[in-house]
């Protein structure tokens, strides 16, 4: 057994986290910053954090992830990291020539109390930021929240650093896509284009984190939201923020600072949430939903009805990030499945409340925990078995030990590809999820069914 020490008996824990279902803020901030065109993320702390964040993002995307570090030593930890950061900014602009540097803090610089507003101002004052270039920043202490919080903080940092109001309204909608894959961002853009709506989506890691092999390395590839686009977000008609944990902070900030009204809703994963997304877009932009999209929707519903028998009543355990889990839970419920164990590592009472609300009519009670961990999830599974497990790569240890069909979803996925290229948002994404779940469950059925009842057609 891989997790041979995980027992059925659950002892309450107050201090020890075992097998986390979250990681720390800066990695989310780094990922968000990569969605700005020409941006070099920078980790203000010791170099280990940066090395870990780059490595983990790289394992997930199989793409280059560059980022700077302030390389704190013991001295900088005592006296503060101002000179390290200013030196780093100078070096990065000179050597790598990014358009933007996006600085986030780490536990270390937060604990020391480094003030990014003041240090970045000093970098500008000292002439370390070349004309036309930008330094933006966000505080991301990892002892608060999770990587999702870090993503959310950097989204706010982007607004804070770029958004402007000229007074002239623009016929465009801001979209905060949430902490999703580049493929998902691409799909959201495809859908809005299909509907004929002008949008500024940020961050946008498509084209950055799923770039082509061209035989030439470009540190700053074509993708990412441009500075000009970001500046214009203060003039947009409205903002749609997808996923409240990842996106509401920046959306609300745009609202209070520039009076750009925002609508916060679930990530468009699965049928119900995608319906709401398309409907909001329709209303906010005042456009009709084109037939092509209604057709895509119909295809998803078609497969859901065709294969309904394989979903009905199946119990599911899932772990990951709150925005994803909320949308997924709703989707599973819409498929007549029963989500029984749900864990996110990210803290948040709203999460638990929302999940309880979504599952209130189901035949089995749900175990749900925010700020939980995968050890607890595994123990729950040992007590009530499930037919399907959904989560990041770490889930494969549980899946193998317990022989559960497993669908990889979330961050990080380090042992498979596909997530950067095929979306799970939108109707197409719904189809992909349905396909993946069926593949996993039916492969097991095929493997386990006795010879006499082994079926050709399913």
């Amino acid at each position: 057994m891989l997790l041979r020490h995980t027992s059925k008996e659950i002892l309450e824990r107050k201090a020890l986290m075992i097998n986390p279902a979250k990681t720390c803020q800066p990695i989310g901030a780094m990922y968000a910053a990569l969605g700005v065109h020409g941006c070099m993320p920078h980790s203000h702390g010791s170099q280990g954090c940066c090395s870990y964040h780059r490595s983990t993002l790289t394992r997930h995307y199989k793409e280059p992830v560059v980022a700077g570090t302030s390389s704190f030593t013991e001295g900088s930890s005592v006296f503060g990291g101002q000179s390290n950061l200013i030196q780093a900014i100078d070096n990065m602009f000179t050597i790598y020539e990014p358009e933007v540097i996006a600085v986030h803090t780490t536990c270390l610089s937060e604990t020391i109390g480094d003030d990014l507003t003041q240090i970045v101002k000093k970098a500008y004052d000292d002439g370390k930021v070349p004309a036309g270039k930008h330094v933006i920043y966000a505080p991301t202490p990892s002892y608060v929240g999770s990587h999702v919080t870090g993503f959310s903080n950097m989204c706010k940092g982007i607004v804070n650093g770029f958004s402007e109001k000229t007074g002239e309204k623009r016929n465009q909608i801001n979209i905060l896509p949430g902490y999703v894959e580049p493929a998902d961002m691409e799909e959201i853009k495809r859908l809005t284009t299909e509907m004929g709506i002008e949008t500024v989506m940020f961050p946008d890691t498509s084209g950055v984190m799923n770039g082509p092999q061209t035989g030439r390395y470009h540190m700053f590839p074509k993708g990412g939201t441009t500075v000009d686009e970001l500046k214009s977000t203060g003039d947009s008609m409205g903002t749609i923020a997808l996923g409240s944990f990842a996106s509401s902070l920046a959306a609300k900030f745009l609202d209070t600072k520039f009076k750009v009204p925002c609508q916060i809703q679930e990530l468009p994963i699965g049928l119900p949430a995608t319906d709401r997304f398309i409907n909001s877009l329709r209303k906010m932009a005042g456009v009709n939903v084109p037939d092509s999209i209604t057709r895509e929707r119909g295809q998803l519903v078609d497969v859901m009805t065709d294969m309904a028998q394989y979903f009905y009543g199946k119990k599911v355990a899932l772990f990951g990030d709150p925005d994803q889990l909320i949308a997924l839970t709703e989707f599973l419920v819409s498929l007549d499945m029963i989500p029984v164990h749900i864990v996110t590592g990210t803290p948040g009472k709203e999460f638990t409340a929302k999940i309880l609300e979504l599952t209130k009519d189901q035949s089995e009670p749900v175990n749900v925990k925010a700020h939980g961990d995968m050890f607890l999830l595994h123990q729950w599974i040992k007590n009530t078995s499930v037919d399907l497990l959904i989560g990041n790569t770490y889930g494969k240890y549980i899946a193998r030990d317990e022989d559960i069909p497993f669908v990889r979803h979330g961050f990080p996925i380090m042992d498979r590809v596909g997530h950067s290229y095929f979306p799970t948002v939108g109707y197409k994404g719904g189809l992909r999820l349905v396909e993946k779940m069926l593949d996993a469950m039916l492969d097991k059925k095929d493997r386990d069914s006795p010879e006499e009842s082994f079926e050709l057609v399913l």
Partner: protein
Amino acid sequence: MKDTQEGLAVADKTIDMDLNKIKAQILDKYPIKVARKRAKQIVVTQPGDSNTMPEIGANVRTIPGILTQRGCCYAGCKGVILGPTRDVINIVHGPVGCSFYAWLTRRNQTRPANDDSPNYMNYCFTTDMQDQNIVFGGEKKLKQAIQEAYDIFHPQTISVFSTCPVGLIGDDVHSVCREMKETLGINIFGFSCEGYKGVSQSAGHHIANNGIFKNVVGMDDTIREGKFRINLLGEYNIGGDSFEIERILNDCGISLISTFSGNSTMGQFANSHTADLNAVMCHRSITYMAEMMETKYGIPWIKINFIGAEATAKSLRKIAQYFEDEELIAKVEEVIARELPSVKVEMEKARALCEGKLAMLFVGGSRAHHYQELFGELGMKTVSAGYEFGHRDDYEGRRVIPSIKVDADSRNIEELSVEQDPEKYRLRKTEAELAELTAKGLEFSQYDGLIKEMKNNTLVIDDISQYETEKLIEAFKPDIFCAGIKEKYAIQKSGVPMKQLHSYDYGGPYAGFQGAVNFYQEIARMTNSKVWSYVKAPWEKEPELAATYALS
């Protein structure tokens, strides 16, 4: 198979390159202060003996913003040295991330004795510090976490790792460990390996060595069976390397008391002082342990290397020579004679596909040296190499140690003062015996470093930056580049196959005889794969149109 780099069949296109010019071009982009610093860490090897070997800047601070490969002290301590031991619960005291990223990502394999014996390596433990712990201190939470780990798992050993914020808020991790050790009656100890200590992972290695030496080594005096009993130091069982080495040693009749730390247990560490020889694989990360064990327990150490078929054979012979036993010497020769022919067959096959190609290696603290053996066996030339966290002695050999300046960053890392143990010290070889063996060519406590083995007119670069990596690729167009995961895809996007030498790209083992075969095949695959030929689309290759076809 010896000296395979001599007489390359294919012309060496780098032989006349002006590397000083390339160096100057690289430095040109840097701000003056940065250029001055980096200049010391980039060295062109020169013809001549070791006296003319240039001094290289190493183990110095990384320049902020330069885009380094390096990680932190904690990564070196928890990730590298203590990660591979299966029967200890490693609690990372800090916010969640530090522990999360080190969770199973280094690929240390392990083989528990049976289905019931402890293996915690697939688990990740953290105190997941929250803001109130940062404000009010985290000692209470740590204590509680240790208690919970004990209540749930009942381990024999718990160790605790401090991350950056912990050092800053002043949690006394060691006193918590002492207290809980008393209360629970199991071995519990801590490591002050905060990420900001030192200048790289290297500081963490040292701290880990100190901690295991102080808290574990020497606790179990049982003399295990076996006539020729050794420890293997600095082998971490990435991709199963230790398993292959264990197989070979076992076939030779050499008993492995403990490996530091691939496929290891705390019990093996505790007993390791009973071995009669320490064989050091990674000079950078573990020689502290070898030296301390020599002083305290009287175990001599030699440098060996199991990367490369010829190097493996040589290392086995060295061990046999040490024991001065005819039977062992014969047995080792028998194993070598049994293993080498089939290795050689595979080597020749791969060599036919690889000969004359160029390699670059920028990784770790010993692999950038060791893997040159394998490339040499394939007839490939290493045109440029360097370490991520090596010291001058790893480049220039231990003879330079007395002349290495101890700077503030190194001074902060504790040097244990070790003395001869009044009871457990046992002289393995007298001075005279050692001298005699040395005279016969078996060097003790010696390592000549990487530079000596590089060809003339090659570039040695310490703590290489992303920019320098790109420039090297431009200048040399190597056929393969070896580094870590962070570098992998930028290099591959340039059209150059990239081999990870930390994680082996999820392959391996590459150590020993079988490992060498795996590596030959892997490099042959990587440098000859069809996939690289599709980078350009047909219309990019010949953009001119012969005729036009317009929709009307």
